[in-house]
């Protein structure tokens, strides 16, 4: 037996262990990757040429545009309503906070698909919508519900009102995450309620609000696909109407899948930039957000390895492989 003496051996000379489990996991992942790649390339039913043609088709582009701006408009309305609901729910006024609570309970407690169909069929409940003095008073504006509720307005109503309920909880959580001392300092210096909220509390709450809001926006992009049931011509409805005609079901669904992935990927990168902005004051290392930073670092490393040889491994990890 090796007796190292009192001082022991420098740990720098310790031999690395071979990590069999790590290598087994790598092999499994590589194997599954090859199987999937093979399936994607060799299965003729994907009809990649058809996918490529429709991927660039103007009709698909119009559907895509509808999806994008429907998500954007619904999200903006949802966020604004959500902030108001969050402030109402945190109010000391019990009636106000109770009403906000009931709204959130109602809209979070029912599927958005059901809400969309309900809004679309509002005319069956309320044939005429009017604006004026309630309980039989004079009416200022009066119109039939059917002329007001189009697939578009039903889609925005359904998506935005539902979103507001989720955003309210996210905003409320964000506001509660800010140290009460911040509000106290703002109050002590004489900021009004609105100034305290907009200049001190909300900017700090954003750190907690942005990540889940990014998730919500991505969910919203996907949720817009449900408006196809009320004949709103988003990207899903568009590809469905094409394959109902041509029976190229799988290629057209693949087109939709690719476009959804492109939009959500772009949103991910934008979200990282925004998160980075609101992390100021908390961050030690400054610079570009995660994904972008990784890409930049990778590009730099590639450029370096082309010009210079990599530095020799000094850690004595030769037993690793």
């Amino acid at each position: 037996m090796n007796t190292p003496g009192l001082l022991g051996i420098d740990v720098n000379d310790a031999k690395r262990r071979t990590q069999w489990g790590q290598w087994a996991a790598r092999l499994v992942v590589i194997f599954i990757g090859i199987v999937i790649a093979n399936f994607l390339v060799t299965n003729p039913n994907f009809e990649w040429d058809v996918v490529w043609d429709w991927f660039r088709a103007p009709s698909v582009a119009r559907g895509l545009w509808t999806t994008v701006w429907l998500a954007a408009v619904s999200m903006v309305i949802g966020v604004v309503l959500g902030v108001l609901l969050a402030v109402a729910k945190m109010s000391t006024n019990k009636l106000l906070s109770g009403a906000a609570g009931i709204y959130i309970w109602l809209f979070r407690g029912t599927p958005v698909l059901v809400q969309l169909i309900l809004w679309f069929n509002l005319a069956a409940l309320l044939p005429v919508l009017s604006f004026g003095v309630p309980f039989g008073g004079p009416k200022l504006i009066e119109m039939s519900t059917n002329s007001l509720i189009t697939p578009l307005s039903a889609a925005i109503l359904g998506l935005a009102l539902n979103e507001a309920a989720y955003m309210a909880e996210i905003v409320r959580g964000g506001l509660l995450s800010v140290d009460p001392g911040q509000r106290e300092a703002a109050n002590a210096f004489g900021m009004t309620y609105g100034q305290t909220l907009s200049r001190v509390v909300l900017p700090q709450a954003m750190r907690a609000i942005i990540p889940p809001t990014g998730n919500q926006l991505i969910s919203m992009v996907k949720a817009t696909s449900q408006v196809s049931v009320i004949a709103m011509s988003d990207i899903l409805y568009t590809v469905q109407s094409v394959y109902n005609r041509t029976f190229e079901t799988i290629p057209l669904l693949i087109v939709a899948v690719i476009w959804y992935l492109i939009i959500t990927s772009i949103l991910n990168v934008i979200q990282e930039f925004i998160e980075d902005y609101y992390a100021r004051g908390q961050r030690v290392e400054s610079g570009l957000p995660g994904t972008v930073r990784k890409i930049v670092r990778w590009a730099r490393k590639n450029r370096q390895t082309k010009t210079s040889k990599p530095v020799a491994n000094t850690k004595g990890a030769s037993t690793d492989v």
Partner: protein
Amino acid sequence: MSDPVVLGRGVEKSFGDNHVLRGIDLTVERGEVVVILGPSGSGKSTLLRCINHLEDMDGGSISVNGVQVGYETRNGSLYHASSRVTAIQRRTIGMVFQQFNLYQHMTVLENIIEAPITLHGVPKSQAIARGEALLRQVGLEGRGVHYPSNLSGGQQQRVAIARALAIEPELLLFDEPTSALDPELVGEVLGTMRKLADAGYTMIVVTHEISFARQAADRVMFMSEGKVVEEGSAAELIDRPQHPRTKAFLQRFL
């Protein structure tokens, strides 16, 4: 001298069953530095927070320069003021907190110029020039671009002091300004506060730092169980305490 900045009479405050302030009288003259000593739970911080109405009091009255913060008089009757009016009444009172409470999302300089610009209508260039002068004054020249989280506790508290000075306060309130600091950082903050005392600011300081009271206080109040049990010059109260509770309290610091 009789030009009181703060005049409090019979101040009462309870948190539920806990009777925190039991009829406090308080007078602070212009330019005077008053240190409030007392054991934890004696009501010192609550009293300080009643002065700028961060805490709602239950009885008595406090006025700052003749204004009862949080209230307004109309036709000889006293009304609870709206939060907007209260906010405006607070704008000449600077406050320094135990936990600094610097705005975490703003740089040091932004923290200092926030109130002057948004609340006092000071032009931005002027506010920045004054902010930089204040940073020099508290020994943090060139730190304006840092965020509070990158500073030590002592530095943060000095920024908080500069922020309070930026509004050109008629009155400065210090709520245990060194209690959250590591012992080796206490000195720099107390040093800055001594300079303010010498410069003639009107200050009310709630603290456990007997040495600060001895060096900077014009008057020391000793509170216990919601009452002022003893009051006098630093030399009188600290070196020759009369009341047994004051004696017991000071014994621990010898």
